[in-house]
């Protein structure tokens, strides 16, 4: 098959669609340079958005175009693998701002470092700045995503929340980090994957909008762990075989018996300590934890979809973000709805794998097998 023959057709249909969009909607014009030899005219995120939220008349057309362009993207992967070309997205600008709460809790606090400013003497400030930058670069370079909302949203982080605070969170608009109590936890800015986890909560908020309760909440948590882990692997240029698949490695204070907060490779084995107990994560549906605490165990049951991702990525080999990551990203952005269940995620990733790599492809088989192994399918 000649991909370039197909490309010209592809471009034609997208130009038509773009013409329609420019007249009928308020979507901003495409910013990807047209000179790029193998790039689509309308960014896929915009097509995904239109396929879900666009005017009724456009939804189906957007979805069809997306399917075609996703197939093309699969072909581009092959071309890139052969060294036949590059179509990277331009580095683009980030807008990071770090605030210091000085142990207060009234957000955001005092502005201490903006984009491009010199390093601070405070390691918390510099880690929040650097790790949020790597995360934004990862989303842009791997998925063509422009910040948390895909519209270039500012990345605000506040550090030194309260005193000895054992947590980090995304409040719907910004990241917040505690210092840790020094007994169980060190500072929460320390780990790249934790900051990747928090920013991914923002991405999920703007995409599938997964409700933070029960299975949809556990999926929300899982997407944050999966993309947090990928950010770390991408930064370290690790293959699926070389990665440790831990979340928050090195976050525990000295003396705590544990490697990390969670393990995607072996959920339930990240820590076992007399003070904080044992990692409660299941890796299979038969061990799904029922109960009301933590919004229905969102940080516990995320072990099941976390492990499914690990199984897909390791079955496919190479870098996790190249194939498994794309399948998960497209499912998050184009398929899942706020009250999605694990079964919806399984069917959604199967569908995305089929669109990206073809039905009954090796990739789609790996997705199916993974969800079967964790007892969801």
């Amino acid at each position, binding site marked *: 098959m000649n991909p370039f023959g197909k490309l010209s057709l592809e471009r034609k249909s997208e130009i038509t669609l773009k013409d329609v969009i420019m007249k009928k909607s308020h979507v901003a014009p495409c910013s990807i340079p047209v000179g790029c030899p193998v790039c689509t005219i309308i960014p896929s995120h915009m097509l995904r958005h239109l396929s879900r939220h666009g005017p009724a008349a456009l939804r189906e057309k957007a979805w069809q175009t997306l399917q075609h362009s996703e197939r093309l993207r699969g072909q581009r992967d092959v071309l890139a693998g052969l060294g036949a070309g590059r179509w990277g997205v331009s580095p683009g600008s980030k807008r990071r701002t770090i605030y210091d709460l000085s142990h207060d*809790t*009234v957000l955001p606090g005092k502005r201490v470092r903006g984009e491009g400013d010199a390093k601070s003497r405070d390691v918390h400030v510099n880690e929040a700045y650097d790790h949020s930058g790597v995360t934004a670069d990862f989303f842009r370079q791997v998925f063509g995503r422009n910040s948390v909302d895909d519209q270039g949203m500012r990345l605000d982080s506040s550090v030194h929340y*309260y*005193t*000895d*605070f*054992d*947590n*980090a*969170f*995304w*409040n*719907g608009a910004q990241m917040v980090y505690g210092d840790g*109590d020094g*007994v*169980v*936890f060190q500072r*929460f800015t320390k780990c790249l994957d*934790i900051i990747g*986890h*928090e920013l991914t*909560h923002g991405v999920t908020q703007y995409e599938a909008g997964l409700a*933070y*309760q029960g299975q949809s*909440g556990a999926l*929300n*948590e899982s997407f*944050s762990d999966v993309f947090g882990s990928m950010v770390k692997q991408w930064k370290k240029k690790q293959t699926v075989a070389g990665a440790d698949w831990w979340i*928050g490695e090195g*976050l525990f204070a000295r003396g705590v018996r544990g490697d990390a*907060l*969670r393990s995607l490779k072996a959920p339930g084995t990240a820590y076992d300590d007399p003070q*904080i*107990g044992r990692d*409660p994560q299941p890796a299979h549906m038969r061990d799904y934890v029922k109960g009301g*605490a*933590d*919004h229905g165990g*969102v*940080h*516990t049951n995320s072990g099941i979809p976390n492990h499914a991702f690990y199984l897909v990525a390791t079955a496919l080999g190479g870098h996790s973000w190249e194939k498994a990551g794309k399948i998960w990203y497209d499912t998050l952005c184009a398929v899942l709805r706020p009250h999605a269940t694990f079964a919806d995620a399984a069917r959604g990733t199967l569908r995305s794998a089929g669109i990206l790599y073809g039905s009954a492809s090796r990739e789609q088989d790996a997705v199916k097998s993974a969800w079967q192994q964790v007892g969801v399918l």
Partner: protein
Amino acid sequence: MRDGAALGAFDVSNMRLKLIRTGGVAGLAPPPVVVDTAALPEKEAQRVAALVAEARFFHLPAVVRSRKPQPDRFQYSLVIEQEGGRRHAVRCDEEAASGALCRLLHAVQTLKNLT
């Protein structure tokens, strides 16, 4: 009601507090913090009494839930028994708690080192 009364007039009768925290990015469920203010240094006991009054704890609804929970936030369950038998229990999402209630919850959580 006396709870919001003038500063310096806190009810310093002994209180027993039990705080359970769940959630957070780590998803840990640390052991409950159980505090008897009689066992605290005078200054700490005063501070806790002041925070209980400021939060108007005994007038809060039993459940303070967020309509749209924020990812990785804590949830708390706080029970306070006062000498004389007054008892109240509040379950809340951290992001739905008022500033005063938040200060009380955070303060009691850090008292774990004093018990």
